[in-house]
């Protein structure tokens, strides 16, 4: 079965999705021609769901995050597709609507908390700013809420008047999360939120995020290169490779039965701390350069199970088992995809 955009949603989805991404396409305009960083990806996130987007550098995962809150810097342009939040198109919002939409509907936490905070403003001023810009409350009220938010993310409110440089990396990242929570958004986009932090601090913050999510009920789009972080925390995971989603499944399913050779390779790239020491191979070769992506299946130059037709035909994301989608010719009766469709069109 082919998967139309709307079908790539949670198997247990009952109500309408909070976020829907349909055939999103993003190009970077370069002097040597446009580079398609995101090539027609679709997924949706339910209220309260933690959705993981995993991929290596250059896979387009961060570009997706930037596109769906419309903060893509030039020369990147959204060249196709749609992003809907509660059924409303994000790309159709006016500037004023967009301002309300960011922070209130969708908030973001980015990788380098060190750079996300303004170094010459106190933590409290930065949280208050966010509140005051969106809500008609007094300065005093905003400060009280800032104090409560800091406590929520595990920072003593005595640090309210601290400047960012007076806080450790972990605390700064917590402060950024406090700002993201300030207006109680329905979705928080987290792009590598703990990558720059030490493992112990990373675990502390992830635990805290999970506790907050259970309490406040927001959804999370969690973007990372570290699949091992997602498997424990996400409800569903999408794996990106060279601008496309190659596999999408509930996390347990993805861990127990990864279908795409790329996902299988990723899974065998993490040495374990328990059991016998095993020889791991990782994946041969390197991620492709997006200026000249490989033809056909983009993973074919690194794939051990490649067939001649895979070099020509782009596989489609299709449902291999209930709720488990994969874009790989190995799981189709016969290779079919974009080229096949085009050929079919000519004959039909």
């Amino acid at each position: 079965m082919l998967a139309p955009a709307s079908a790539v949603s949670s198997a247990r989805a009952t109500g309408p999705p909070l976020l829907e991404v349909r055939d999103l396409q993003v190009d970077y305009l370069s002097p040597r021609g446009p580079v398609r960083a995101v090539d027609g990806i679709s997924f949706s996130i339910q209220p309260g769901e933690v959705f993981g987007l995993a991929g290596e550098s250059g896979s387009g995962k961060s570009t997706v995050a930037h596109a769906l809150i419309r903060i893509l810097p030039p020369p990147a342009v959204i060249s196709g597709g749609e992003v809907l939040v509660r059924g409303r198109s994000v790309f159709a919002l006016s500037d004023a609507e967009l301002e309300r939409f960011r922070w209130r509907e969708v908030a973001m936490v980015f990788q380098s908390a060190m750079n996300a905070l303004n170094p010459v403003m106190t933590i409290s001023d930065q949280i208050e700013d966010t509140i005051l810009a969106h809500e008609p409350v007094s300065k005093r009220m905003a400060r009280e809420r800032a104090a409560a938010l800091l406590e929520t993310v595990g920072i003593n409110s005595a640090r309210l008047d601290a400047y960012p440089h007076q806080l450790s990396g972990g605390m700064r990242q917590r402060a950024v999360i406090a700002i993201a929570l300030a207006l109680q958004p329905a979705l928080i986009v987290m792009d590598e939120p703990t990558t720059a932090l030490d493992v112990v601090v990373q675990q502390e913050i992830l635990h805290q995020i999970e506790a907050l999510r259970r309490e406040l009920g927001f959804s999370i789009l969690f973007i990372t290169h570290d699949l091992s972080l997602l498997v424990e925390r996400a409800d569903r995971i999408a794996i990106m490779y060279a601008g496309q989603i190659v596999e999408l499944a509930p996390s347990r399913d993805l861990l127990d039965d990864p279908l795409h050779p790329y996902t299988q390779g990723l899974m065998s790239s993490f040495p374990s701390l328990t059991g016998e020491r095993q020889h791991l191979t990782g994946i041969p070769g390197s991620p492709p350069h997006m200026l000249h992506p490989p033809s056909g299946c983009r993973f074919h130059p690194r794939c051990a199970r490649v067939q001649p037709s895979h070099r020509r035909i782009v596989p489609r994301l299709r449902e291999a088992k209930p709720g488990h989608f994969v874009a790989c010719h190995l799981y189709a009766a016969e290779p079919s995809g974009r080229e096949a469709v085009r050929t079919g069109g000519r004959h039909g």
Partner: protein
Amino acid sequence: MAEPAAVQASTNGGSPPVLEVRGLSKQFPIGGFFGRKQLHALEDAWFSLHRGAITALVGESGSGKSTAARLVARLLPPTSGEILYAGIDVLQSESRQASRTYRSKVQMVFQDPFGSLNPVHTVGYHLERPLRIHDKAGRGDEVRERIDELLQTVGLTPPRDFREKYPHELSGGQRQRVSFARALAVEPAILLADEPISMLDVSIRMGILNLMARLKDERGIAMLYITHDIASARYVSDETIVMYAGRMVEGGRTDAVIQGAAHPYTQLLLSAVPNPKAGPSTYAGGRSGLPSLIDPPDRCPFAARCPRVMEICERQMPERSQVTPDHWVRCHLNTTANGPAASVSSERR
């Protein structure tokens, strides 16, 4: 401090170490010109490197692991301590700086493969220079042959595809392989690898670790592997040393340290590693807080965060004691639980 027996008790069944580090410390003055405060980046480090073995130094940022590597590479002068190469204290015999001989024996690979290669030179040039400077090849064809051999060794094949390439034409993993090839050019006995995989994509990290394992097996190179990733240390190393706040707090045969972690910090570190195959995270949580490296008092640096802290931890840094013959720890719990007989700090060879 007396010489800890564990420095000698290696995993290598008694072969003499290629390199031995004794009581190595590094302090950085801070607080401006008149400042008298010292940042204790590395305190009293003892370890040795053996032929055909990988020793991993595991720790978080600020634990002193990179400082240790830089001191051994002699990119920094230590405040005190000894570095013995082939039994001779190189800090005494070459007190001013590392000689060409020392550099030809001890090579380093850095974390950032994007910053450690010169963008205006080809891969071939990067490999040719050390060959010429250290007289490892004659002229013309011989140099070319050696370059091809080096590229082959690190898995950049066929060599002709890589010789004339510039760093920007290579992926991160390929660049890191060039860094290894460059280090190997002088036929070193010791390789210091400072976080060689942390900036690489997940799918190509294992390739680099496997390369390290191969170099150790095939060429008998002694390796120091600096990492924050204890799972990768388990994968590739024979011996593991855990560092915290400039101190080596636990060490020994890798399996002994990871399977039988005795230090509460090592236990915390292990529990924080995401391990999807083992089911939900076992991370128990801990009191956070960064240890201060500035003029630290004489006590266990982990005391403030330790769930099993005792009164003695606040006023005395524990000495090394053996957990098993191939596993030591610097923790008062080990000595109080097993009695003072377990302490081997007075036992000298």
